[in-house]
């Protein structure tokens, strides 16, 4: 610190001599940094008031409008009810077999665009063998209740659909 030892001594003397208004007079320069700080703070409050998003804090510490924005996303999977709405026949077949709990889109893939414009957007043909194997290939980590086969030995290379009808796989 740059002040000489005598400075503190002088201060004591000055304290004794100076009356209160005199002291304040000599603290006048301190008002300046205080004004700078207060101006900065006021500016901050002004800017803050202007730029905090409108719905922030309505429902919690977040922008409430973001809930609706997130909901705007368009679904890619139409949902089982939509498929069944048009494809009643095959839905009925499926409902009578072991695949009754497997949703259409589990195999056929996302269909919302197809449902919105059935003529223009059509599904690509499925690779049935790969699709069957994806679930039913034998794997000791799969639960025991689940039907599994070693496809090579089970079919001898013949495609699954030559025996099984995918919408109702049991004989």
């Amino acid at each position, binding site marked *: 610190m740059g002040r000489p030892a005598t400075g503190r001594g002088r201060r004591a003397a000055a304290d004794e001599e100076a009356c209160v208004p005199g002291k304040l007079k000599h603290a006048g320069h301190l008002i300046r940094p205080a004004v700078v700080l207060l101006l900065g703070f006021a500016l901050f409050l002004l800017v803050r008031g202007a730029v905090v998003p409108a719905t922030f804090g309505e429902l*919690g510490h977040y922008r409430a409008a973001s809930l609706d924005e997130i909901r705007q996303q368009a679904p890619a999977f139409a*949902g089982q009810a939509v498929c069944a709405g048009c494809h009643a026949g095959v839905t009925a077949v499926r409902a009578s077999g072991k695949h009754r*709990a497997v949703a259409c889109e589990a195999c056929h893939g996302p269909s919302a665009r197809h449902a919105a414009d059935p003529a223009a957007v059509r599904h690509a043909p499925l690779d049935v063998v790969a699709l069957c194997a*994806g679930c039913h290939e034998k794997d000791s980590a799969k639960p025991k209740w689940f039907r599994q086969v070693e496809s090579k030995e089970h079919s001898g290379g013949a495609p699954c659909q030559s025996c099984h009808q995918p919408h109702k796989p049991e004989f």
Partner: protein
Amino acid sequence: MTISRRDLLSQSGKLLILAPVAAVPAPPRRASEDAAAGYDPSRHRWAMAIDIDKCIGCGNCVRACEQENDVPAGFFRTWIERYQVSGADQEHPKVESPDGGRNGFPPSSNSNAKEFYVPKICNQCSESPCVQVCPVGATFDSPDGVVLVDQSYCLGCRYCVHACPYGCRYIHPGRHTVDKCTFCYHRITRGLTTACCEACPTGARALADLKDPRDPIHEFLRVNKVHVLKPHMATRAKVFYASLDGAVR
């Protein structure tokens, strides 16, 4: 569980289509419920039921999530792990998740180990560490119990990625903001189920609404031995697992 399914089946003919064979039936999603207009968040509290004994590791959920939500390659909102636990050695299970299990798993033929698949997804914690640490309020707990991210507000500090004990968050390489499972918020608020649940062929996972007294989740929680992941983290996770092994972390 069969009882509950029968109850459900008797409720509506539509359920004949929806109800899976398995012990985790899809809840009666009100497909007719008008999405954008009629949704009241205060009437729902979303959760998920996962039955380990139903998961076959096919990867349908991972692919469906990708297709529904445009998940960038190499990152996962949901993924599947295969566990192999040998004997009493619960501490060192062999775990794999090639590409998040999106293309399934190479078949195993291990008769000596206990093996099973574990689907993972954001646990939509009620006491979310990720929400707690977000410095600006860009990630939050929605009124209906889903942890969401405001993509236009996230500054990409990555603190929440560290705070999540389950590894469910990642930084979107294109947006440079954090991304995570939304429980398909755009679907469930339209009366649909999540893409992963829609695509799951065995009903291993089912979206659940804890505020709906008719939701099968109540039966699921009552009948099964239920566990959540890392309960010692006290996050009050809302993804409930039936038959979860102690080796899973």
